[in-house]
C-alpha cells in the first residue's frame, strides 16, 4: 500500500503544483532558520573530546579570605589558581596525568635578519598536556618528564609555525629564538583546533590554539608574563615576579586526568586534606573554603560557553517554525479540500477512514521531506551569513551527519504533526456529499 500511496501523492502534487510549492517553501524556510540557529548552538556545546571528556578535570580552589570574594561566578569559586597551590597540587601522584597551565606569549625572532620578528601566543605546560588532550605529533615528541622538575629551554611547536619557519620539514633538534633566548625544538604537533578551546575557557573560548608550548617549570626561571587573567583579592605588595609567584594572585590553571570513580574519590579526599593542611598557614580562612572538580562538559557549562544570544535564538526559531507550520496546516486544508471529491469516491469504493488518513499522511510526509531538503540547502546560506556576522564562529558553521538527520527529523516530525488535523478532517468528510448522488 505504501507504494500506492506514494504514487497517489505524486499525482496529487502534479495536480496542485503551486500549492505544494508554497508548502515546501514554508516548511523549508522554517527549517532553514531553525537549523542555522541549532547548528551554531549544538556545535558550541558539543563535546570536543568525547573519548575522554569524563576523565579530564579542571581544579578550582576557593582561596578567598573571609568576605573577600570578588568572583563573577555563580558559586563564588574563582576560575584560576595561585602559583603556590598549583605547585603543591602537582606533588600528588593520584592523577594518572596532570598539567599546570599558563597562557603566555613570545616574540619569535627568525634566523634570517630579513624576516621581522613577530608575536605568537604560547602556553606553559607540563609534558602530560599532550597525552591528556590527545594532541597528535607529526615530528618528535614532548620533552622528558624530568624537564618538568628541572627546567630546560625546550619547546614544542605547532604545524603552522613549523611551516612558516622551517618550510614544513622535520625541525626536531633545531633551535627557536624566543625573546632573544634559544629553545630546542623537541616536537611538532599537528594542526589542533578544538572548538571550544576547552582547556582554557578563560581567555577566549573560540580563539586559535597556541603554536608554542614550553615547560611550565620555566616560569620562575624566565619570568614568563601572563597573557591571561590575573585576579587578586588580597592586599599584597608585588614588586617583582618572585612576589607574584608567592602571592595569592590567581593566574594559573590546573588539569588532572582521573580515569576511575575510585580515583576521583581519592583525589577529592586529597584536595580536602590539602585545604585543611593549608589552613595552618593562614590560608583558606573563609568557611566556604573548598575544592571543586569539573570535567570537560561541566567546565564548559560552568563557563557558559553556549552564549545566551544563541540560546535565545533557539527559542525564537522554534516559534518561527511553529508559525511556518501553522501556515502549512492552512495550506494543507486547502489542498486536501480540493481532493475531497476523489476521497468521496474512494470511500464509496470501500476505503476506510484509516486508509484515507494514512494516504494523506504519506502525502504530508513527502512534502515534509522536500521541505526538509530545501531547509537544509537554505540553512547552508544561513550558516554562511552567520560566518560573516560573527568572526569567531568559523568552526561552528558546518553541519555534521547528526545535524542533517536532526533537520530531516524535525521537518518530517513537524509536518506530520501539522498534517494530523487536515488528514483527520478529510477522512471524516461524508462521502455522499461529494458523490453528486441524484
Amino acid at each position, binding site marked *: 500500500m505504501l507504494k500506492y500511496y506514494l504514487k497517489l501523492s505524486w499525482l496529487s502534487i502534479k495536480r496542485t503544483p503551486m500549492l505544494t510549492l508554497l508548502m515546501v517553501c514554508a516548511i523549508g524556510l522554517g527549517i532553514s532558520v531553525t537549523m542555522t540557529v541549532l547548528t551554531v548552538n549544538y556545535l558550541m556545546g558539543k563535546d570536543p573530546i568525547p573519548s575522554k571528556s569524563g576523565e579530564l578535570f579542571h581544579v578550582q580552589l576557593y582561596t578567598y579570605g573571609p568576605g573577600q570574594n570578588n568572583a563573577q561566578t555563580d558559586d563564588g569559586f574563582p576560575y584560576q589558581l595561585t602559583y603556590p597551590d598549583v605547585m603543591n597540587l602537582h606533588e600528588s601522584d593520584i592523577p594518572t596525568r596532570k598539567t599546570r597551565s599558563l597562557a603566555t606569549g613570545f616574540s619569535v625572532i627568525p634566523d634570517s635578519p630579513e624576516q621581522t620578528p613577530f608575536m605568537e601566543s604560547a602556553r606553559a605546560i607540563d609534558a602530560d598536556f599532550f597525552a591528556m588532550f590527545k594532541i597528535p605529533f607529526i615530528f618528535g615528541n614532548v620533552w622528558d618528564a624530568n624537564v618538568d622538575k628541572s627546567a630546560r629551554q625546550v619547546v614544542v611547536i605547532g604545524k603552522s609555525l613549523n611551516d612558516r619557519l622551517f618550510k614544513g620539514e622535520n625541525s626536531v633538534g633545531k633551535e627557536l629564538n624566543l625573546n632573544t633566548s634559544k629553545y630546542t625544538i623537541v616536537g611538532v604537533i599537528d594542526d589542533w583546533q578544538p572548538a571550544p578551546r576547552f582547556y582554557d575557557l578563560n581567555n577566549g573560548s573560540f580563539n586559535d590554539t597556541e603554536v608554542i608550548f614550553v615547560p611550565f617549570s620555566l616560569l620562575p626561571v624566565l619570568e614568563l608574563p601572563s597573557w591571561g587573567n590575573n585576579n587578586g583579592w588580597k592586599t599584597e605588595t608585588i614588586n617583582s615576579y618572585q612576589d607574584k609567584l608567592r602571592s595569592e594572585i590567581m593566574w594559573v590553571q590546573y588539569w588532572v586526568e582521573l580515569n576511575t570513580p575510585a580515583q576521583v574519590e581519592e583525589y577529592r579526599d586529597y584536595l580536602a586534606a590539602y585545604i585543611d593542611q593549608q589552613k595552618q598557614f593562614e590560608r583558606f580562612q573563609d568557611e566556604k573554603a573548598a575544592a571543586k572538580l569539573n570535567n570537560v562538559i561541566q567546565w564548559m557549562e560552568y563557563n557558559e560557553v553556549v552564549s545566551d544570544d544563541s540560546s535565545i535564538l533557539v527559542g525564537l526559531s522554534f516559534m518561527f517554525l511553529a508559525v511556518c507550520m501553522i501556515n502549512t496546516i492552512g495550506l494543507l486544508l486547502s489542498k486536501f479540500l480540493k481532493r475531497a471529491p476523489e476521497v468521496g469516491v474512494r470511500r464509496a469504493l470501500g476505503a476506510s*477512514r484509516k486508509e484515507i488518513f494514512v494516504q494523506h499522511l504519506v502525502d504530508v510526509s513527502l512534502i515534509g521531506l522536500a521541505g526538509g531538503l530545501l531547509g537544509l540547502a537554505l540553512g547552508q546560506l544561513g550558516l554562511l551569513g552567520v560566518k560573516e556576522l560573527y568572526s569567531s564562529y568559523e568552526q561552528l558553521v558546518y553541519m555534521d551527519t547528526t545535524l542533517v538527520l536532526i533537520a530531516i527529523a524535525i521537518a518530517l516530525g513537524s509536518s506530520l504533526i501539522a498534517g494530523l488535523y487536515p488528514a483527520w478532517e478529510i477522512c471524516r468528510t461524508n462521502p*455522499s456529499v461529494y458523490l453528486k448522488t*441524484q
Partner: protein
Amino acid sequence: MLKMNNIKKVFRTDLVETHALRDFSLEVSEGEFVAVTGPSGSGKTTFLNITGMLETFDGGNYILDEQDVSRLNDKQRSRLRNEKIGFIFQSFNLIPDLNLFDNVDVPLRYRGFKAKERKERIEHALERVGLSARLKHLPSQLSGGQQQRVAIARALAGEPRFLLADEPTGNLDSLMARQVMQLLEEINQQGTTIIMVTHDAELARRAQRNIHIVDGQVSDYQDLQPVLDVIEA
C-alpha cells in the same frame, strides 16, 4: 440476500426535523434487477446512501447476506462496501488523473489483492465492458458512455454481491444511454443483482421489479411486467 426492515432516517437541525425515510422496507433476492423510483425529495438519495452503507440510519435494521450491518463500525462497513457492493454513479466519478487500468484498480487496492490477481481482474472486467483496448487512456479521452462503462467495470472487478446504480444514464445522450442499459441487462442476465435508483420511468421499465418511494415510504410495490403485458396486449 438483502433485507431492509422499517428503516427510519431523520435529519435534525436546530429548528427542523426531516424524516427522509420512515418505515421503509425492502427485500432483494439474488439475481434480481430492482429499480427504485420516486419524485425529487422522496428519499431516493437517502435510500441509496443507506443501502450503500455510506450513511447510518436511526431505526429498523438492514441485513445483508445474513449479516446485520447496523452495528458495524466504519472500518467494517468500508470492508463490506468494498467486497459486496459495486457503485455506479450518475456522473461516473472516475478519478481524472488515473488511467482506466488504475481507475478499475482502486477498489481492488483496498481489497488487498496481490498485483497479479488485480491485473487479471482488471483486464477481465474491462474486456467484459468492451474497453480492454484502451487500458492506458485517461477518462478525459473517452466519451460519456465509455466512461460509464469503465465505471461499471470498476464496479464489477471485485465480484460484488450487487451493483448499486444511481441514475446511471442521467448524464448520457440517448444512444449511449441505450448502450449502457443494454450492458446492465446483460450483466444482470449473467447473474449479477442490480439495484438501480432513477426518476426516469422509461429506465425503470427495463428492470424486473419497481419500488416507488414517496415521502420516505414505499408507496407502490409492483411487479411491472404483468401491467406492461396488459398495456401492450
